[in-house]
Each structure stands twice: as C-alpha cells, then as structure tokens.
C-alpha cells in the first residue's frame, strides 16, 4: 500500500520551471535549463501509461510506486504569473491537465500548492495575492476532475523568493505557484 511518505504528486515540467526551482528540495532536473521562466515552456515528456499502472490504485504495490515515481518525478512543477495577477495561462493549463491526469490515477496522492509573489509591494497584500495564485491553480485542477481533498494550498506572499535580485527576470521567477508533494 501507499504510505503518505512515499506518495508524491509528480509532474515532469519543462526546463523553464526547473531553473526557478533550483532552491527547492526537488530532485535534479533532467531537462536542460533555460534562462528565463518567461521562455516558452518546452513540450512535456510523455507520461507513462498510467491507466495500466494505477487503474486500480488499491492494488498498487511499493514496487510499482517506486517505478512510477522514478519515471515521473523529474521535478516538482511551478506555474508562473504576470504582475499582480493570479491567472493561469493556457500553457500552464495544458501542463496542469497532465498533472490532473496523474492525480486522478492516484487518488491517495496529495498535492500542495504554494503561492508566491515577487518582492515588491506590501507584505499583507502579497500574502493574499499569493494565496489567490495558489487557489487559481487549485481551481483549475478541480475543473480537471481532481478531488479537492487531494489538494492543499498555502501562501508565503513575498517572504520566500527564489531569486533575491531586483531585475524583471528575478521578479518573474518569484511570481509563482510551486507544486509540491506535502
């Protein structure tokens, strides 16, 4: 059986997200790293045939879980946002749909969505903007059939930037929702 510690909501993302996630405790990225999160996201790596692996989740064994994770756990994904907005763009939606497939296949997997802002602006407003971003991701996953009980969210506002710089690229890298296995 799956134990909570071994469960991971996993999502192989393109290089752009990996570059901004360098400081998060995620495994080494497999994909090449590009400079800017604003760069167009490369195509996803093909997903494994989940239907075969996990169509009956209660029969999943540790071995298949490990295999599943090894194949899929390239990185924990990140969704990026425009300034002062909490709108999930179409490219992110496409990738989230693939993630939603995984979460539906593995109904015991949990996903935590962390909302963040760039370091400009007020502490309190950014806490709420960060939560709005996390909830925007959550809402989209729910529309893709992911049960809300699999989803958690928390906002850190501007308190946990991945890039302490003050360039536009740094701000763009910080305006994000990180998807993690809790």
């Amino acid at each position: 059986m799956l134990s909570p510690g071994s469960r991971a909501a996993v999502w192989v993302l393109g290089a752009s997200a990996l570059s901004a996630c360098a400081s998060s405790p995620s495994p080494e990225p497999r994909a090449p790293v590009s400079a800017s999160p604003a760069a167009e996201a490369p195509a996803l790596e093909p997903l494994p045939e989940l239907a075969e692996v996990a169509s009956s989740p209660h029969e999943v064994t540790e071995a298949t879980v490990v295999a599943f994770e090894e194949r899929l756990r390239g990185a924990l994904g990140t969704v990026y946002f425009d300034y002062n907005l909490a709108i999930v763009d179409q490219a992110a939606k496409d990738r989230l749909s693939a993630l939603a497939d995984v979460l539906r296949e593995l109904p015991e997997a949990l996903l935590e969505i962390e909302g963040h802002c760039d370091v400009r602006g007020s502490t309190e407003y950014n806490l709420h903007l960060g939560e709005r971003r996390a909830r925007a991701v959550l809402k989209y996953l729910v529309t893709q059939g992911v049960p809300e009980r699999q989803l958690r969210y928390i906002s850190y506002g501007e308190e946990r930037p991945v890039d302490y710089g003050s360039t536009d690229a740094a701000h763009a890298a910080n305006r994000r929702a990180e998807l993690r296995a809790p």
Partner: protein
Amino acid sequence: MPKSSSHIAGSGVALALLLTGASLAHAQEGRRVIVVGSPDFRPYPMAIPALRAASAGEAAAAAEVITRTLRFDFRIAAQFDVVDPKSYLADPRKEGLTAPTIRFADWVNVGAEGLLKGAVRMDDARLVAELRFFDVASGRPLLSKTVAFTPETARRTAHAFADAVVETLTGDRGIFQTQIAVARKSKKGRELWVMDLDGGDLRPVTRNNSLNLLPSWTADGSGLIFTSYVRRNPSLYKVNLDGGNLSLLSGERGLNTGGAMSNDGSKVALTLSRDGNSEIYVMNTDRTGLRRLTNEWAIDSSPSWSPDGRQIAFVSSRFGDPHIFVMNADGSSPKRITHRGNYNTTPDWSPRGDLIAFTARDERNVFDIFTVDVRTQEIRRLTQDQGNNEEPSFSPDGNHIVFTSTREGRSQVWIMAVDGSNQHRITTKGGFMTPAWSPLR
C-alpha cells in the same frame, strides 16, 4: 521637503508648503498649542547645550547620553527644531542651571525660544540629573526635575524629561517613550522585535524560527497582534511584549492577517480567506461575534480603524488594481478614496482622524509614502527619490510617521513628520519590515 507629486498627486496641487508652516498660538495660562499643519506653522526652536558633568567617568558618560537623546528627540519631533549646537554663543563654563546665571540674550541671538539645560553628578554612588526647561524670551523656568537614574536608564530618563517638556509646553503628551514593533528577517524566517523610538533597546518578541509577520499593537500597548506560521497555517496570534502569553486570536483555514484592534480595545478587524476569498471581518477581542464586512471577488485586506472606531480603511482590488477604501465599521457604504496610481496599499488611519497614510507605487515602479485627506481626498506625497519607502504607521500624536526605506541600501526604519519633513533613520541594522508605532501607555 519633498517635491509635489508628479504622479499620484497630479499637477497643480500645491502641497508641501501648506504643512510646513507653524502655528504657535498662546493658549490659556501660558500653554502653547503647536499645530503641525496649520498655515503659519513654524517649528519651535529649542537650544540644547551639552549637559555638564560634575565628574569624569559615569557622570560624564551619562551626561553625554542624555544630551544626545534630548537632541534626537527634539530633532525628530515635528513641532520642534534643535538650534545647531555649533552656533551657541553662551559660555558653557560660566553658565549655570539657574536663571540668574544664564544670559538669555545669548540664546535669543541664536534664535532659540526654548532652552534645555542640565547637569549630572554622582550622589552616594548614584547618578543624579538636574534638568531644566526655560522660556528664553521671559527667562522663566517652566520645568525643573531632579532625577536619580542608572547608566542603563539614562536614555529613558532623557525621553521622560523630553515628554514632560512637550506636555508643559503644549498640554499634549509627548511620544518619546513610545515604541516601534517590527518584523525582521532572520536566518530561518521572520521574527518580531520591539525598539524604543530612537532605535534603542532593540529586543525580540518572538523566537520560534517561523514566519512572524505584520505586527500591530493591542490598544493598551501591552502586546502585539501578528500573523505567524508557527503552527503552519498562517493564523493570528496575540503575545505580550516579553514574548509571554501567546494566544490564538483567529485560526481559520487559510490566511488570518492584518489584525487591527480598535482604540477602545473591544474589537479586532482582520482579513480572512476562509470563505475562499480574502475578505475583511470584525470580531470581539474575546474571539466572539465574528462577522464578515466585505463580499467581493477581489482581494479586500489591511483594515485600519478610524480613531473613533466608526469607520475602517482598507485595501481592495475590486476595480482591478489595489486602492484605498473607507467603509463604515458595519461594512456599509464602502467608498474608494484613492483614484490615482495603480498600486495603493497599507492604509494607516491617523489618530487625529483626518488623514490616511499609505504606500503607493509610482510610474517608475518605485514605492513611496503618501497621505490622503479622508474628507477632501487631497493626496500629499511625503517621500520621493529616496529608494523605496513603504508601510507607514502613525505616531499616537498624529504628528509623525514611521516607515521602512531602502534609501541607504538595506531596509531600515525611518521616522518623519506628517508633512514629510524631518526624515531620520532610527535603526542601524537592516532587514526591517512593517513597522508599527505603539499607542501611548
């Protein structure tokens, strides 16, 4: 003085001069009313010659601390100016502490209206300060104190005398013994700290290695209300200044932020996201009677009470960009009061009731402090071309604002007069955020 705003205030608004003027009207029984902001306002010029020490060592060191502290206090005070000590004509070796030994003409000639003098001596191994305040024009002593103190309390002894001088002169309580609460970056998160008005005695309130954010004061000044991730969910807590008596005020799912206690201490306004969106609520201080005041698709946050407790200022992005709004304390009649710019946040309502200070992002993406007149909606810019200036909080006398500024690199705590003049840094280290000025105790 700051220049008038090109962006927020718009053109054609004559700003700064309105407030620099001084009015020093004579009230009954020699009391003076100094109204910062009245058309003829001019700060009251105070001469503060160095205190004399009867002996070297502790007395001399304490005299130095008291002199420095008195000068700091009257420099930052919007109602006062300190006459440049380098200009003083009086001979410090000849002049004593009593009126007959003072040549008041020497003080008139340097432009002083008030004169603070003092001496420190050792009395049976105790430090004793003699402190005097004279009206220069009449040569009359207005205040005289003899205080025993220790090296550790020298600064506070000076603050207490400065407060007594302000009260003697104006009838209003001085603010020099008030305190500033801040969040400050730490290795593992953010901790809350409290410091004296001059940045002295910086001491920790929280030490939990978590994120502790957005401190505000309880109405009686005995503790802080703040948001902490210490139990993971960002909940609202109350804590004593010494870090004791931590109690949960609001632990709703999601964000519990912006806790603000009404002046009478009966209610707490706060921002909650428990209903799936950030909205403003009010509850009784004992956690009963929670009710929702806003209901918008947008972010509503950062409540600040009017001094009479009848209205609440807040931030709302209901029209897209965040702006400052005012509503009645029951949530009725919300009204937008900032109409320029596209990022106005962190409202703080003046204890006088007339102004709301806020942070605005200008067209160059720089953050500065502004005030808006609640009645006329007139905007005044208080900072400009000096790094990012954010998170204003009014002093309890309404004459001053504490804020953070990056003008010298790291984010430090600064104090200015409500008209933007008289800007002084009060911290020496960096990493400070969201200062909150204590009430009078």
